[in-house]
């Protein structure tokens, strides 16, 4: 069975490698972030398979953390237009 897990993990890794084309070619910034989001999910699947193949449940914790945290980067991207890039800040008058 472990060959099956490793073989599938291998194919999923290939889909990530192929998916890189979308990041390179993606016309808009949003397409690129989409591809990163898909890689997160595929990475979780690969980690689950690797964890099962190695019989080591610590690898599943890595998958759990990926499942939790890929949303943070994506949400930062969604709110990137609101990032406060105003160069003049009030503290110039007075403090320095």
């Amino acid at each position, binding site marked *: *069975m472990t060959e*099956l*897990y490793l073989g*599938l993990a291998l*194919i*999923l890794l290939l*889909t990530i490698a*192929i*998916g890189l*084309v*979308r990041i390179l070619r993606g016309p*808009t910034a*949003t*397409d690129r*972030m*989409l*591809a990163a*989001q*898909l890689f997160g*999910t*595929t990475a*979780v*699947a690969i980690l*689950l*398979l690797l964890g*099962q193949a190695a019989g080591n*449940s610590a690898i*599943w914790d890595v*998958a*759990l953390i990926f*499942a*939790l945290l*890929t*949303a943070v980067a*994506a*949400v930062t*991207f*969604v709110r990137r*237009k609101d990032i406060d890039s105003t160069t003049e800040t009030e503290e110039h008058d007075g403090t320095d």
Partner: protein
Amino acid sequence: MALTDLITAFLLLGSLGFFLAGTLGLLRFPDLYCRLHALTKADNLGLGLVVLALMIQSDSWQVVIRLLLIWLLVLVAGATVAHLIARKAQQDGHQPWRR
């Protein structure tokens, strides 16, 4: 090959189909919204089948619950992020693709 191994292998091959469809959709679909559609297939069904397949192999119920938690988290986060990205793209005036 015990019966459970057979079922697991079958489920894993099914999940592979969804992941390939997700990646193919990401590359081939003409527009952001269609790609978003393809992407969420990969994580709720592709990952769902992987989790199901591994659940059959597991021997204790804690493992089952841990796998389920991982899948539900990816599901919730993926769906919400997909919605947020689509909403933001529409606000930025991204026109859906027309033939």
